[in-house]
């Protein structure tokens, strides 16, 4: 009897609720025709929680905030491959999404984060400007910085470009992770932790000093390597090894300045002509000398094989000439400022006598790479390890006798191996739980380890499709930037190991030289202010509390 009563009561309540909901949601109350269009329903394609928990959480936060402002919005966790397909697909069928740009070393040059992802030329389907941001005034600056060969003047242009981005907020940076990595201080000393690169960068293997008679550095990775062919290499993990085996003309110093490597120096003859002088007396690991012909051959091989990853860096090259036995001249189509910092620091010098004999350079397995770099390739077992010994004839030989790149299946396995002293260094960012574990050092288990932390130049963000309402409205984007709790992302979700985001922030303070500290960015969590911004911009709320676009 009692049960029945409760049941019928519940039914009644339910009926009442649906009646109210139905009546309120569908019909437009009188007076609402004075408002503009309803803000269309928004879907945020967020990361899957297992792929990126922080992005997933932050997307849900934004959803809640916008919902409180009367916007119909939901988050849809999406697999990475599906997300890439959607945002680079032909239909451009999306409202907003969360994703990130990783902080690779070549992205220290501002061209990627200024030009490539914001220029209106790249706003068509498939381009990197997936926010469809179009501002002619910005485009002028983005083009100019690319062609300005004077670094001080270029910096000024990049600073101005950042100001415009901070005002227009094409995307909202949510946070950036810190690169927290660890190494064994009982066995080794002197390391560099470089933003976007971590410990296993181009310099650490060269400068690290062994403290015991174990002179082989054991580096842990939790990602497998796919190929040893530099033209086929698709992930940064192959590159971290290949660039130690193959030498390059220029390397970026830990302070991110170009320093001569295989080149002894370079002259900028004019804006379109750069002469590079080759260091003398270098040899490949098979004993053959490194000649200017090899340099010309290498660059042309990368251009002719259309190696996707390097296409944008190599596009500005018109031709390559050999001037004399130690000089190569690069003729450019147009002035290209990142040429020295990016192009010359990226392309490995291949031995012509080996590569010209390959039938298919692009797909050759290159199972025993021979370069002229500081380390000599010994062997590689897929899924297990890559072994390299030190090239004692290198112009600045390393202090260790070689290194082993150990491939693990899981970060848990790496932590155990660190604990047991089986490995000396990690090559990836520790997950927050492991950072805590090592930092707490319970029972002195990790006395032999030292955590190193450096800010990442990469960032994770909320991308908004400006071709669609409401994100086409700049004020709506600025208001949204006030709905992100930037401190929550860093302090709670990242345990403090990260950097704050902000509206339109693309070059963060980890990139000391190019970051413009004077730009005021919208990086304050303030839902009240967001409401004011919307109201000032002409947005209104109808009698149902739903947000409406400014009246045309």
């Amino acid at each position, binding site marked *: 009897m009692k049960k029945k009563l409760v049941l019928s009561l519940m039914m009644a309540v339910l009926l009442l609720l649906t009646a109210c909901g139905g009546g309120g949601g569908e019909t437009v109350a009188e007076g609402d025709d004075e408002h503009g269009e309803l803000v269309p329903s928004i879907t945020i394609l967020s990361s899957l929680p297992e792929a990126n928990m922080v992005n997933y959480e932050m997307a849900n936060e934004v959803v809640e905030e916008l919902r409180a402002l009367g916007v119909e919005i939901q988050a849809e966790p999406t697999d990475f491959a599906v997300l890439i397909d959607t945002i680079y697909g032909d239909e451009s069928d999306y409202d907003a999404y969360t994703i990130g740009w990783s902080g690779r070393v070549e992205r220290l040059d501002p061209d990627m984060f200024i030009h490539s992802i914001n220029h209106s030329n790249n706003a068509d389907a498939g381009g990197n400007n997936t926010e469809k941001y179009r501002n002619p005034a910005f485009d002028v600056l983005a083009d100019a910085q690319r062609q300005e060969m004077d670094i001080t003047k270029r910096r000024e242009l990049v600073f101005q470009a950042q100001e415009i981005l901070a005002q227009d907020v094409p995307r909202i940076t949510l946070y950036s992770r810190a690169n927290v990595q660890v190494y064994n201080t009982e066995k080794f000393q002197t390391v560099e932790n470089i933003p976007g690169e971590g410990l296993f960068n181009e310099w650490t293997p060269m400068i690290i000093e062994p403290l015991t008679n174990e002179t082989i550095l054991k580096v842990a990775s939790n990602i497998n390597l796919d190929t040893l062919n530099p033209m086929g290499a698709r992930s940064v993990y192959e590159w971290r090894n290949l660039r130690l085996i193959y030498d390059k003309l220029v390397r970026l110093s830990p302070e991110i300045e170009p320093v001569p490597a295989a080149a002894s120096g370079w002259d900028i003859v004019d804006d379109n002509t750069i002469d590079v002088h080759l260091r003398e007396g270098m040899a490949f690991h098979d004993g053959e000398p490194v000649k200017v012909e090899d340099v010309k051959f290498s660059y042309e091989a990368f251009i002719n094989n259309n190696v996707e990853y390097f296409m944008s860096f190599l596009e500005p090259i018109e031709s390559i000439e050999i001037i004399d036995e130690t000089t190569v001249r690069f003729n450019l189509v147009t002035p290209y400022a990142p040429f020295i910092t990016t192009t010359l620091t990226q392309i490995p010098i291949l031995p012509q006598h080996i590569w010209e004999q390959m039938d298919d350079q692009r797909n050759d*397995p290159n199972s025993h790479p021979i370069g002229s770099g500081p380390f000599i390739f010994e062997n590689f077992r897929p899924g297990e390890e890559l072994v390299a010994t030190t090239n004692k004839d290198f112009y600045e030989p390393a202090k260790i006798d070689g290194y082993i790149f150990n491939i693990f299946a899981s970060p848990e396995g790496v932590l155990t191996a660190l604990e047991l002293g089986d490995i000396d260094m990690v090559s990836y960012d520790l997950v927050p739980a492991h950072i805590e574990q090592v930092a707490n050092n319970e029972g002195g288990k990790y006395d032999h380890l030292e955590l190193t932390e450096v800010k990442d130049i990469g960032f994770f963000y909320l991308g908004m499709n400006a071709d669609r309402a409401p994100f086409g409205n700049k004020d709506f984007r600025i208001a949204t930037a006030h709905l992100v709790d930037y401190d929550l992302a860093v302090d709670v979700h990242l345990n403090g190991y990260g950097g704050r985001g902000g509206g339109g922030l693309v070059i963060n303070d980890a990139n000391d030289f190019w970051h413009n500290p004077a730009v005021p960015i919208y990086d304050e969590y303030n839902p009240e202010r967001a409401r004011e911004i919307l109201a000032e911009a002409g947005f209104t709320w109808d009698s149902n509390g739903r947000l409406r676009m400014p009246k045309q």
Partner: protein
Amino acid sequence: MLKYIARRVGIMTVMILLIATMIFFLFRAMPGDATAYIVDPSMPPEAREIARERYGFNDSKWVQYTIFMKDLVRLDFGNSYFYGRPVMSLIGERLPATLILMLTAMIFSYIIGIFGGAWMAWKRGSKLESAGITFSLIFRSAPTFWVGLMMILLFAAKLRWVPAQGMRTSGYTGDTFAEIFLNLDFLRHLILPSLVAGLYFIATPLLIMRNSMLEVLSEDYIEMAKAKGLKERTILYKHAARNALLPVVTAGALFIGSAIGGQVLIEYVFSWPGLGREIVQAVTRRDYPLAQGAFIIISAMLMMMNLVADILYAVLDPRISYK
């Protein structure tokens, strides 16, 4: 008999082609762009286009399918998108590691399972029997990665008897099969993962053997043997166990068929460079050729071992014959 085998092989070939077709279209029906993992998002759109062209994504599904089937008939699974190398050689490289681990685990679990199962049926109702069942079921239901982690914690981290992970001590050199697999270092690395896998598998042969034994033990000839006053052990292993083996043999043959797929979680926990991990990664990376190749080989192996089981049946039990 030969005719029977020939017919079965014929059916199997048709089945594999059907399965291949299904797998092909299943993968194509998966949402997501295969170039997402091949082409870095920062590359210009032209680069993405070049990659699409290179891997044939721009051809119609039908054209892709015809090429795939033509290659398949020649036993060519194409090149992996991710590794850029032939799928066959990739699978060939990873297979020994997986098979050695799985077969070691199998031998361990089947020897204990068969003898233990027979003995448990004999001791039916005793405390030892229920203890045996509980023991095997605990390892069957406990997550293998958890058991693995606990074993690593105890035997590798605390006691330091065996290495924690990997297949060899790093920096080890060796080129031939014997140098790589037939040595003490490898065996030391093999113990822990094969123990964890073996403990997980043990419930199958143990319980099948026990149940099948119980059935056999109720047969008249066992009564007869008891009446003749034969020794317990003779009845148990000579008269009963041999006849109870049949279902275990089927299970064992099917096990070998599926062994190629490996035990992903165990390979993960022990950083074992086997095929199982590779297949999972191939699917997430949308590396269709590698995933297709692996799945087709797994299904072919399963069918083949099914046939082997059927043939073994006839050999073990003269009452069964095929026409």
